[in-house]
């Protein structure tokens, strides 16, 4: 396992000088690269090193840093190794290179990220709508989208009962149970 990892790091480092690696226990290895390198590093992994399976594409919203982190997870069935390729892009100008010519199924992930995070993929050919129908608000998975406030103003809500009673105390009154000490601090 260690041998495979060192070998892989060496391969990647010679091709992509700016890539920084992070080694994890088990069959996992992380590389952080620039967004321009993404198509070439994925093609290299797929065609030369046998990482033929795209497991997942994930997006993380780092609101405080003003960045989106996009993570590609690829898997090699021969070496039994997972490789994470990470990249950070600007949150305000979220543009990514398109990789659906490398793996066709990446198209679905990219459509979802476009809809949920508002990331633009250059040259992505797909209909505008994916899961949300007639959506007019901001991309809903961004962390600065306040979903509760949006729901409050878009939908009706049933008001709660005015005599909102503490369920625990009411049950005790009816059945004359003892309330355990640890539960008392949760009472209203």
């Amino acid at each position, binding site marked *: 396992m260690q041998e495979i990892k060192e070998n892989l790091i060496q391969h990647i480092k010679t091709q992509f000088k700016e890539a920084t690696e992070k080694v994890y226990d088990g069959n996992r290895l992380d590389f952080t690269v620039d967004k321009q390198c993404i198509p070439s590093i994925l093609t290299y992994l797929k065609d030369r090193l046998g990482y033929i399976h795209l497991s997942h594409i994930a997006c993380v919203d780092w609101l405080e840093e003003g960045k989106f982190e996009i993570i590609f997870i690829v898997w090699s069935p021969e070496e039994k190794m997972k490789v994470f390729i990470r990249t950070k892009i600007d949150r305000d100008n979220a543009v990514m290179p398109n990789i659906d010519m490398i793996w066709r199924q990446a198209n679905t992930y990219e459509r979802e990220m476009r809809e949920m995070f508002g990331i633009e993929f250059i040259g992505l050919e797909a209909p505008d709508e994916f899961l949300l*129908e007639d959506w007019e608000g901001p991309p809903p998975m961004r962390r600065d989208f306040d979903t509760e406030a949006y729901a409050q103003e878009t*939908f009706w809500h*049933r008001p709660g009962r005015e005599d909102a009673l503490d369920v625990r105390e009411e049950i005790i009154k009816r059945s004359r149970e003892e309330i355990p000490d640890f539960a008392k601090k949760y009472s209203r």
Partner: protein
Amino acid sequence: MINDKNSQKIVDIIQNWSRKHSIWVLAYGTGCGAIEIPPTMTSRYDAERLGVRGAATPRQADVLLITGYLTTKTLKRVIRVYEQMQDPKYVIGFGSCTINGGMYYDSYNTIKLLDRYLPVDVYINGCMPRPEAVLAGFGKLQKLIAEGKATGATKYKENIEWYKENQKKVITNWVMPDYNW
């Protein structure tokens, strides 16, 4: 003769009695609650002994079971299905999501109050309601039908403008017929 008040009453009683014993449910599951329907229908709880059974199309069905949360996307289809159903028709709201949003109270694309969009005759609460609760709900509906109190469809017809206005508030792109009969 048939316009006579008393004979109409007798006709109503016979009609309601027969309607009550043949509740056909449209096989249309919206949320996670649809998973409780197979055990209700099959041998253990056997809803068919009460006359409750599945129907293949909206036009053959009497009851529309809303099993769980409704996204705005699904609501569009549900309204379309409801409008296709023929009288007599009833709606059962199933699970706490249809009552007050349940665990999706802060979701950006699920409606919280079903009875603003469709006339609900019976609510079954719980998350999820067990098959016993579902059967109790059907029992309640049968009771209402026998008493002639399950008048959701009439209410819908009388207040169609109010319902349409509410529906169009969440369905911004209305690409189906107006159903304004």
